[in-house]
């Protein structure tokens, strides 16, 4: 079965640079979530989109922005990168239309961002 695709899988950036992470949800999934997992930490919710509109907002820094496109893929844009942004960034997707599976978020493999 198709899974959530994230690219790139690894990214190395310098301080103050920008980064763009991409997420391709499972086909027919209409909701995308972004989570950040620091070293040894649990995943923390950043932001989510439903049908291309922002749905919920968590602890996302003002330096970050995200959007969901017409094909439902999403991008997380990160600017003025700081050392503390080094983390594993997960994208998850879910479907809201089918009651049987709509409650489950399926996660991608993550993008490991290292800021030097």
């Amino acid at each position: 079965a198709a899974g959530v695709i994230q690219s790139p899988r690894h990214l190395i950036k310098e301080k103050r640079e920008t980064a763009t992470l991409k997420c391709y949800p499972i086909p027919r999934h209409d909701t995308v979530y972004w989570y950040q997992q620091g070293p040894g930490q649990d995943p923390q919710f950043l932001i989510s989109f439903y049908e291309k509109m922002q749905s919920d907002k968590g602890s996302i820094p003002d330096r970050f922005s995200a959007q969901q496109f017409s094909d439902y893929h999403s991008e997380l844009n990160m600017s003025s990168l700081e050392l503390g942004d080094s983390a594993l960034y997960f994208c998850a997707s879910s479907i809201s239309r089918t009651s049987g599976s709509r409650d489950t978020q399926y996660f991608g493999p993550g993008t490991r961002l290292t800021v030097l």
Partner: protein
Amino acid sequence: AQSVAQPEDQVNVAEGNPLTVKCTYSVSGNPYLFWYVQYPNRGLQFLLKYITGDNLVKGSYGFEAEFNKSQTSFHLKKPSALVSDSALYFCAVRSRGGNTPLVFGKGTRLSVIA
């Protein structure tokens, strides 16, 4: 506000023995509860969930979890542990209504010893 507590950072169990990974939650109203597993350098894999119905939920790889409303717990169990079950396990909760985000516990590292 929602929260999840996983009281054990580490659980060690011998292969073939039963395992339990504990989780308690706090949420207003009825919760949606989930267990995910994370292998090294991998994403989070969905194991099982409780939405409504039977308190005992069966999931992937022989895992099951029991929802206990009075104790606000959702412990993960497996009758016979395998070495390949060694991984990081996260309990998560979300409130009902809409596509709300997950709130995770701190995770429990399970080590199954041969």
